[in-house]
């Protein structure tokens, strides 16, 4: 399929965009990456995702698909000659989907809140909550991996992608706020998994460097502070 048949609208700092990129990489699908300029939305984005106006958007043969986890499942459904992203067993699929939803609804919002926390007490409370979440995910990792390298087993799977995409921001959060989130003493399985995930061929080229994310976060916060009151 011609490269232009598959387009991905995205931005390098976005963990959600990274999910789509990892999935495409796993399937060895050639695609055109269209970087959205921070602070403005392209016509193509507004046309392709009129409901949310957000990235990522996958455009396959001119048809748009939105919402990162929907995109990953679509990629898995279409490119069936590549390795499977979702497990084959329906129960395992449900477990992967459950934890992916948990990461989106509970884990990431809490982690993201650390930077904006008002005061040390508030920050400590959020760090603790993130720790609790990681403990749950460590347990899930034990159960899903069954002793293998990834949540998906021998290869990266749906939950690896759904959770792993946040590792860049997790490390940036640790550095910027002087906190330790992923702790070898508490979640040894996840610490080793994180290194393996980031080193994987499908992930390496698209996981942004922690330093770059920290720079970006500074720009973001400055913009938010400088923004006129609503």
């Amino acid at each position, binding site marked *: 399929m011609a490269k232009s048949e598959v387009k991905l609208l995205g931005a390098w700092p976005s963990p959600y965009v990274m999910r789509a990129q990892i999935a495409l990489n796993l399937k060895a699908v050639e695609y055109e990456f269209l970087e959205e300029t921070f602070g403005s939305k392209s016509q193509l984005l507004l046309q392709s995702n009129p*409901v949310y106006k957000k990235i990522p958007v996958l455009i396959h043969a001119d048809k748009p698909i939105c919402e990162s986890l929907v995109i990953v499942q*679509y990629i898995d459904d279409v490119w069936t000659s590549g390795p499977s992203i979702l497990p084959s067993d329906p129960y395992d699929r*449900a477990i992967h989907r*459950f934890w992916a939803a948990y990461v989106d609804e509970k884990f990431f919002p809490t982690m993201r809140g650390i930077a904006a926390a008002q005061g040390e007490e508030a920050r400590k409370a959020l760090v603790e909550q993130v720790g609790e979440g990681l403990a749950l995910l460590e347990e899930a990792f034990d159960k899903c991996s069954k002793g293998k390298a990834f949540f998906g087993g021998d290869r990266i799977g749906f939950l690896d992608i759904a959770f792993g995409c946040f590792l860049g921001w997790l490390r940036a959060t640790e550095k910027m706020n002087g906190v330790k989130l992923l702790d070898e003493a508490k979640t040894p399985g996840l610490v080793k998994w994180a290194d393996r995930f980031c080193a994987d061929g499908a992930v390496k080229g698209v996981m942004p460097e922690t330093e770059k994310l920290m720079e970006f976060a500074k720009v973001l916060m400055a913009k938010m502070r400088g923004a006129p009151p609503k």
Partner: protein
Amino acid sequence: MAEEVVLLDFWASVFGMRVRIALAEKGIKYESKEEDLRNKSDLLLKMNPVHKKVPVLIHNGKPVCESLIIVQYIDEVWNDSSPLLPSDPYQRAHARFWADFVDQKVYDASRRVWRTKGEEQEAAKKDFFESLKTLVRELGDKPYFGGETFGFVDIALITFYSWFYVYETYGKFSIEAECPEIIAWAKRCMQKESVANTLPDQKKVYDLLW
């Protein structure tokens, strides 16, 4: 092997109703256990330790949580009849997107409509109708969101119909007046046995809150 299917539920939960409709569509026999949400059973706490919420489907002893995940699970296991999701990958992505939209937009706004007052409530009403109107545009001329057949998105949304009297009474509006197409679609869905036998009476739901 004898299939053992148990559903932990609460009769007025829009999420639990989704699972009941899916089970009914597939003709699956199951045991229903009604939860008292102010006094959750040990079984519920054991089967859904993370969220401690209903619905939980327990299939041969193993729990599945989160209503839309459960519905997809049901569709994938009992895959010999009445498909709930389309087979075409693009249509499936479309269905997943819109079911997720119901969770992201309709649920949140509907809660705020009956739980808030004043300015907050006005904002909630605006969001609620915006989300319904977006769905109406998506529905278009089709009888169901699934096209010719009742499907995943219909299941995701129709359960809220049982709470319409609550929203209308607390919000002081008429959904039929604002969004007649949604009412027409809902009545069409209510003609299906799986839906009519599952959704509680709107007044009964209202009395629960009173």
